Structures are given as C-alpha cells and as structure tokens.
C-alpha cells in the first residue's frame, strides 16, 4: 500500500500542490489507513487520472471497511457520493476501465440502488458515443441486476439502430435478446425453432433495410448471417471401420462434429485400439464388433464378414444435410426469398462483397450442386473486388468444391475419388474420405498435404501432380499407401520426403519435375532413405 501511493505521488507531482504531496507521503507512512481522509486523497488523484486500478482497489478496501463501522444511511450517502464522483471521472475519460468497473462494484454494494438513474446515465453515454463498449457492458450488468424486461431492451436496440445502424453492439445485443424473447429449444443457438416466423420475418426486413441503405456496412451483414442461422454443433459417430492384417487388427472410429465454422470442419479421427493379437485369428468366421460411445449414449455395430480383411459402417455421404448446417433455416422458401432480395441488391451493387458472399452462402444452403456454376462466377467477382482476401475466398471455394464432389459421389462406398482441376487451394472434409483407396488431386493449387490428410487410412494410391506442393506433412502413417505421384510440384529437399518413411508399403514414387531432382546423387540418397521403393521416377 505504501509503495503504490508513493508511486502515484510521483506520477502526479505536477498536478498537486506541495501540501498535497506531503500529505500523501504521510498517508503512505501510516500502514493500512482506511479512513475518509485517504478517500479524499485518492479522489483527488483519480479525478486527474481515473485509470489507476490500484487506487480504485484502495478505495474499495476503505469503503468495505467503512461498511462495517457505519450505519446503513451513512453507507448509502457514502456510495451515492462515490457515484457522483465516478460520473465526474467518466466525464474526464468515458472509456476508463477503472471507473466503469468501480461503478459496477459500487452499484452492487449500494443498499438502496437507483437503477433508473444508472440506465439513464448509460443512455446519456451511449448517445454521446453509441459504441462505448464499457458502457454497454455496464448497462448489461444493470439490466441483469435490475431485471429490465427483455422486450423493453429490444425496443432500446430498435431505438439505437434507428438512429444509427452502424452499431455492432446494438445488433449483437439483439441477437442475445431474441432467443430470450422466444425461448424454444434448449440449444438456443439455432433460431429455426424459436422466433416465430412472423418476428423472424420482421428481423429480416429490418436488417434488409439496413443493408439496402448502406451495403458497405458490415454490422448489418453479420447480424443477417446470424439470423440466417448457425449450424448446431452435434457430435456424431459417422463411421466405424475395421481392418486386419495378418497379425493384428485395428478399429478406427471416426466421428464428425458439424459446427458453425465456415470452412474448417472440426473432425476427429480416433483410432480406438489395436485388437489384441489373435482376436480375429479365424478369418473364416464372421465377427461382430460394437463400439459404445458412452458420452453420447450411442453405439455402432460393424461386422467383419467371412473372408474379408476389412469392414466398415458409415452414414451415406450423399445425405444432403451433410454440409448444410452452416445456414440452418427451416423453410427453404424463406431462404429463397432472401436470395431474391440479395440478388436484387447485387444488381444495384455488383461490386459489393458482403452481398456476393451472402448470396454464395444462401445458394449453398439451397442447392449446392444446382448453383455450382453461379457460385464459381461469384467467387471470381469476389476475388476481383476484394483482392486483399483472395486466399480466403480461394480456400472457401475449395471447400465448397470438395463438398460438391463428395455430394456427387453416387454412393458412400466409392473408393476412387478425383478432385483434379478444381482450383483447390486447400483440402478439407478429408474425414468424409476415410474409405478412399485412390485419390487424384492433380492440377490444383495445393501447397501441401495437411496433417488431416493422415485420415485417409485406406489410401493406396495418391496422385497429386501439377500442384505446388512442398510439404507432405499429412502423408503420415498411411499403412496401405503403395503409390505416390508428385510430378511437377515444389519439393526441394530430401528432408521434405522424410515423412514418407512412416508409410511402410510405399513402393512407387514419381518425383519428376520437382526441384529435388536437380540435387546430385539424389537417387542413391533416396534409395537409402526409402528402401522399400522399387520404382522411383526422377
């Protein structure tokens, strides 16, 4: 305590008269003084610099102490004085963390709080700066504690949005109020079940007014995307796969999370176990395996039939709902009419990136395959009008192209999969390709094979010619991989290929057209690194 006061005294040397200073030194000298004199001194200091947390803490200690020795009326008066002092501090710096925090603290300590006064203070602050998030935070606290009805708060956001709709805080607040106003499913994140269609339509109208008035304002677009819906993160077990080799067998369980992220699907591949040797020694009999997932109370059966060395059980990849969860509005008629208004806006504003992106997302939600051509054209425009985010759009587009290709697979058990000439810049949804044995990634713009690539546990042949691959990170422990073709890529060093040593069955490797082929003695070095290779093309 002594130390901190001392420092402040130094800091504010200029602001104080000599008397004040000596007083402060004296205060510092007295250990643990908790009286009104100190209150007055810290007040003087804080009024010139309200951002000194230590002083606020000191004040709180004093006030807490005084609470124990004073009567309730005196405390009330003390805290009311504190509130008016804080008001003065907020005039000095309306965005002072310390002042707002202290105000929150004082308000909750006040024996007879006047919440109406606090709300009107917030209103005043927000009218001066409607993006003062400190004030927003404080206001939410006041609303929570004083129990302002939700619909009243919704009207409050109406008013703020009405005076200036470029206001994330108000829109965001709306997105927290609406589910409260229309409680429905316990998973409050999905709007399709809660706000009745009429009020949902009203929201669409409001937000459309905003983005038609100023399509370059992001806040409305973000709210719009919230309205259109976010996928629900449900963890499901999509596929169980069993295979055995001569000596051991393993069970691979893969469960997918569908989630709200826009282009990275969080998917987990769990290798559950190696079955103990000898469990499936007898391949002439049928074996039934069951995986129990206790957390989700589900289980999956998988039968390894007679004479087979592998088996699986999975959901159909052609299920249209597979990638839809990003925009989840129940009625596609609503989405359709939203698409119409966005297209209308695009006619007026052909260069607007928010509009383009929203249209793409709506089209994805409505009919990903039917709109594929338009989507690609819109992506092209997007990259032109928003060149700073070209890579983002390329990745997003890659994701959609992969999704479409997966959706086009006629049945889930397709094991030869081609993604060539799709302009892919990234790979995703690899979890859907668990059973694929042959994959063709040729003629894209891939820079590498990401770690998730290791999910393709059944992969035997990898073709990735004509890319810019320099990183093979994901070709890791692919126990069935036999052939890798990497013609015309960007592999430069021997160390880049070191990871291939984890694939025991790799026999054929094509590296023609890579910088690495220029290295002297490369053939012998490779033979040394990967002795299993029988056919090496350089």
């Amino acid at each position, binding site marked *: 305590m002594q130390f901190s006061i001392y420092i402040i005294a130094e800091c504010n040397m200029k602001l104080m008269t000599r008397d004040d200073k000596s007083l402060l030194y004296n205060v510092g000298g007295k250990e643990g003084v908790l009286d009104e004199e100190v209150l007055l001194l810290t007040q003087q200091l804080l009024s010139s610099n309200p951002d000194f947390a230590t002083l606020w803490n000191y004040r709180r200690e004093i006030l807490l102490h005084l609470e124990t020795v004073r009567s309730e009326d005196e405390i009330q008066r003390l805290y009311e004085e504190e509130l008016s002092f804080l008001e003065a501090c907020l005039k000095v710096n309306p965005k002072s963390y310390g002042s707002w925090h202290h105000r929150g603290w004082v308000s909750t300590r006040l024996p007879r709080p006047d919440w109406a006064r606090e709300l009107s203070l917030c209103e005043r602050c927000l009218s001066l700066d409607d993006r003062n998030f400190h004030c927003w935070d404080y206001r939410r606290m006041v609303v929570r504690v004083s129990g302002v009805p939700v619909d009243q708060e919704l009207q409050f956001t109406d008013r703020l949005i*009405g*005076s*200036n*709709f470029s206001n994330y805080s108000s829109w965001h607040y709306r997105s927290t109020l609406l589910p409260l106003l229309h409680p429905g499913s316990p998973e409050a994140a999905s709007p399709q079940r809660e706000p009745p269609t009429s009020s949902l339509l009203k929201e669409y109208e409001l937000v*459309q*007014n*905003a983005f*038609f*008035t*100023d*399509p370059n304002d992001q806040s409305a677009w973000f709210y719009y995307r919230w309205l259109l819906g976010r996928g629900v993160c449900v963890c499901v077990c999509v596929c169980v796969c069993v295979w055995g080799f001569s000596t051991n067998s393993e069970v691979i369980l893969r469960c997918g999370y569908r989630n709200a992220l826009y282009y990275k699907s969080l998917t987990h591949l769990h290798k559950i176990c190696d079955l103990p040797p000898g469990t499936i020694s007898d391949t002439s009999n049928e074996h039934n395996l069951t995986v129990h997932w206790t957390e989700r109370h589900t289980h999956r059966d998988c039968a390894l039939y007679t004479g087979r060395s592998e088996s699986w059980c999975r959901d159909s990849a052609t299920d249209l709902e597979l990638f839809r969860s990003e925009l989840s509005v129940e009625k596609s008629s609503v989405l359709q009419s939203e698409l119409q*208004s966005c297209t*209308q*806006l695009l006619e*007026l*504003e052909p260069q607007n990136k928010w509009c383009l992106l929203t249209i793409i997302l709506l089209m994805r939600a409505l009919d990903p395959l039917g709109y594929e051509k338009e989507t690609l054209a819109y992506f092209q425009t997007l990259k032109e009008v928003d060149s700073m985010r070209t890579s983002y759009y390329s990745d997003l587009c890659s994701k959609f192209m992969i999704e479409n290709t997966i959706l086009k697979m006629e049945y889930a058990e397709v094991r030869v999969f081609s993604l060539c000439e799709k302009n892919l810049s990234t790979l995703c949804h690899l979890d859907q390709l668990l059973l694929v044995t042959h994959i063709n990634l040729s003629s894209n713009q891939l820079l590498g094979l990401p770690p998730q690539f290791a999910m393709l546990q059944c992969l035997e042949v990898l073709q990735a010619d004509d890319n810019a691959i320099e990183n093979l990170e994901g070709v890791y422990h692919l126990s069935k991989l036999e052939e890798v073709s990497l013609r015309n890529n960007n592999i430069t060093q021997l160390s880049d290929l070191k990871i291939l040593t984890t694939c025991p069955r790799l026999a054929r490797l094509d590296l023609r057209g890579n910088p690495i082929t220029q290295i002297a003695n490369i053939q012998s070095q490779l033979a040394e690194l990967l002795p299993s290779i029988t056919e090496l093309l350089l």
Partner: protein
Amino acid sequence: SWISVPSTADILLHLGLSESVIAAACARVGQRVLHVDRRSYYAANWASFTFNGLLSWIDDNKVCTYFTLLFITPVNSFKQQDQEECAPLAEDQQILSSDGEPQGEEQLSGSAPTQAKKKKISYTKIVKEGRRFNIDLVSKLMYSRGLLVDLLIKSNVSRYAEFKNVSRILTYRQGKVEQVPCSRADVFGSKELTVVEKRMLMKFLTFCLDYEQHPEEYQDFTERSFWEFLQNNMLTENLQHFVLHSIAMVPRETHTEEGLRSTQHFLRSLGRYGNTPFLFPIYGLGEIPQCFCRMCAVFGGIYCLRHSVQCLVLDKESGRCKAVIDTCGQRISCSHFVVEDGYIREEQRKGVEHKHISRAVLITDGLLLQSESEQQISLVTVPPLEPGAPAVRLVELCSSTMTCMPGTYLVHLTCPSSGSAREDLQPVVSRLFTKPASAGEEGTPAVLWAVYFNMRDSTAADRSGYDLPGNVHVCSGPDAALGSDHSIRLAQEVFRQLAPHEEFCPPAPNPEDIVYDGDGGQGEGAGFSEAAQAEEGAAEEAEESKEKEASQESSPVEVGEMPDPPPAPLAEE
C-alpha cells in the same frame, strides 16, 4: 430628450442582415460605424415582430410611410425630397391583404361558448399573448454548413443566440404531407420506400456528395435539366419527387449541375448538428442581424433608430460621397455609405429590375403531420400545384422555438412571386389547412390568423445598374432562397471594398479577456462621448438578450424625430 448623433463616422449603414454583418466586421477591425435606420426596430426587412408589433407594422405599411424614408438626391441638385411624393417608388413591401381580424372574430364568436373539443385559441388570446410571438418578415433556415453558420462560428457571434435543429423535412405529395427521407437514418427507417428504392436513393445521394469526382455520370446532361437527369438515373417517381423538390429544392428546368450542387449543399449540411441539415435560431431569424449588431456595438458601433439620411454630400472633384445630411439636418461626414437597395430612388437604379417574393404568415392550431412529439420544426416543400406555378416553401415552427404561444404553430410560406402573395400562396394554404369554422376534418390544422404580403427581391441586381458614387455601396434585401448565403457573400464583398487588407470577422475575444482602458480615451468630439453611452446601452442589451424582454421596444439610442426637419445645408466643397 434626444441624444445627438456623432458628426463623423468611417462607415454609415442601414440595417439589414448584410449591413449588420458589414457593420460588425468593420467595427471589429476598428472602423467607426454609425448605423441609422428610419424604422423603430432593428434588422429592417429581416425583423421579427411580436403579434401586436406585426399588426402595427401592417398598419404602417398599408399607408406606406415607413418605406419612403431615404432618398438619395440627384447628384446635381441636393434638394430635399418630399416624402409623400416618393411614396409609390419604394413599394418594396406591399400589403396585399390581411385577412386576420375577421377570421379571428368569427372564431371567437363561433366556437368559444360551444365546443371544448381542443383547447381553442381565440383571437383575443393571441392578442393577449402577443408578446410570445416572434414573427419573422423573412423566412429562412440556416444550412449547418452554410456561410452564415460558418461566419457565426468563426466570428464568435454565435454566443449571442441559441439554435434548434429543424426536426423534420416534409413534402406535399399526392394530396398528403409525408416525411422526406434524407439522412441515412431516415432512409433506413422510412416505411414509404421499398428496399430497392432505399438503395437507389442512397446510391444517388452518395454520388451527389462528391459529384465533381464523377463527371462521367452527368456530362451528357450538362445542357439538360436536372429533372431529366433524375429520370435517367432510374430513380422511381417517389425518389424523383424527394430529390428534386425536397433535397435539391430546385424547379424542374434547373440545369443538371446546379441541381447537383444544391443537392450537395443539402447533404453536406446533414449530420453536423442533427438529422436534418438546418438550424433555426430561437426567438426567430430576426435574432441574427441583431447578434451582429451586438457584436458591432461591443466594438464601438453606434445605433440610431428612427433616424435617417436625407441626402448625400458629394465631393465635386472625385464625385465621392463625403458626408450625409440626416433628417435633423445635421451633417455627418463619412468615408463610406452602405445602403439598402430599397432606399434608392428610381432614377439611380435605371438598369435594375426587381423580382418579388410572396410571403404568408399563418398562425395555426396543429401540426401538418402528427408525430409523437408536438414540438417539431418542419420544413415542408410543396411542389408546383399546377404547371407554371411556383414551388412553395413552408416552415412550420412550434412554440419551443419561442416564436409562437404554446398550442399554436407559426407557419411561414415563401415563394418567388408570379402574382400577388395571395394568388401565389392561397391555393397551397387551402390544400393544407382548414378554416377553424369547418374544423370537422381530423388531423388537418386550422388557420387561426393569416397575413399575405409581397416583398421586393433585389438580389439579382447588378451594382453597375446603380448610378451612385463609388463609395456608396448597395446591399440587397432578403431573397427567396432558403439559406442566407447571398447576404453573407454580399457582406464579404462590400467589406473587401471598405477594408481591403483586413480580415473578415476574426473571432471576437471573450468578454472576460477584454481589457478596457481606464477613461475611454478614444473619443474625439462631442459625438463620440455619446458614443460611449450608446455602446454601453448596446452592451447592456446584449446581456439582457437571454431574458428577451427589451428586444424590439427599447433600442439603445433613440433619436427623436424632428417634426419638420430643417433644410439640408447645400454643401459643395
């Protein structure tokens, strides 16, 4: 008792807005300013009156005495002109009709005993509460980024007045009054527009904000009208109406670039003080010239109301005006003389043609467009009702502007004259308002009292049209435009001729920063010892301005009117 007028001055002026600004600017840079006006009130044609003041103004103007005050004598014969003789020449204000009293009385007898529907306001009540009215002869608004507002801020004169934001822009369309979406928030909130229209309008307005940067958008239309340009921009009929009549506020045939400029002016003023581009001074527009007069008085300017100039004294060789003879026969030497166009005799302005402004002032009992709050200041644009008729501008003031008594609204109508004020404006009044007798129609406000008059608009006049000495400067009276840019620009021009090397209205120091000399030693001669008194008077008045009690009635210096002024000394030097 009357106080003698100083015998010398650097600059001598009459009292309009331009003149007041010039006076303030000159006094500010140390010139000795003498301001005289035959009228008994400040601000000339820019004045505000109480209700009763307006009634006597009407009476005075009916017999046409006040506006025949000053005549510049011909250069060769400095003879005094007879007032009556010249009366018809200075008809810059012509009362064409004042149909107030009969209506008011009808109201009084008809409704007072029977109905208690709304709080009825009788004519006697208006007369009784007459001091609550501040009725402007000129109806203008201040563009938030117009020259006037900039000048008020720059010169610190703004401290003498308070302002309110005009709260709504309305228009009359398809038989009803509706709100014009002009700001971003308005467009967002508008219920009348479809979302596509919102986009179109915002897009167009955004373009107008910096149209100079995109000449390709309008270069094909430079020779064509703004109206055609709007139609070509795929704006719907709604939007064309809003932009043309309520935002650009120009007639259809206006050239594209001018239309774009007006739109830009409107838009640039948006958002500075609020959601509309306009400010209105509390207590009325008449405050503005008075504010400049106060500033002038603070810096030593002297004011003489009910006092006027009979003739000029010219230097034979240079032909310049070196003195004037006032109505008391006193000679006041001056180096410059600034005069309003209305005082100049017909012979001296051969080449000058005048337009007129049609004006009406109504006292009504309700808002034209109901809203949550009764306190609204609205600008209503009424497009031509028939082809060829003028577009009418209507300003509706509520009682919080301190221009009318609570429960009433003061409505100003303005348009360039094509006929008499009544012919021009009556059709609009009858569409928008009812008579109190037929108060059956819900929502339509009734006219309690009305006056129509025409005013001369001399702003188009070119200086070369006047046959006057070089140091006599002519200021025009009010024009029909909504803003006051013309007057301010004119004041700047004149000031440049009066004091070519001085800054125009530099910021005035705060009163507490001014150090006064012990014994005001700047006086020279009898005239200026009185000047100090006059200054005090003015300063006092400035202080009292908040209470607003003494405004028009007590002027700082009142110079008694001589019943029979002695003949002007012929002076040829």
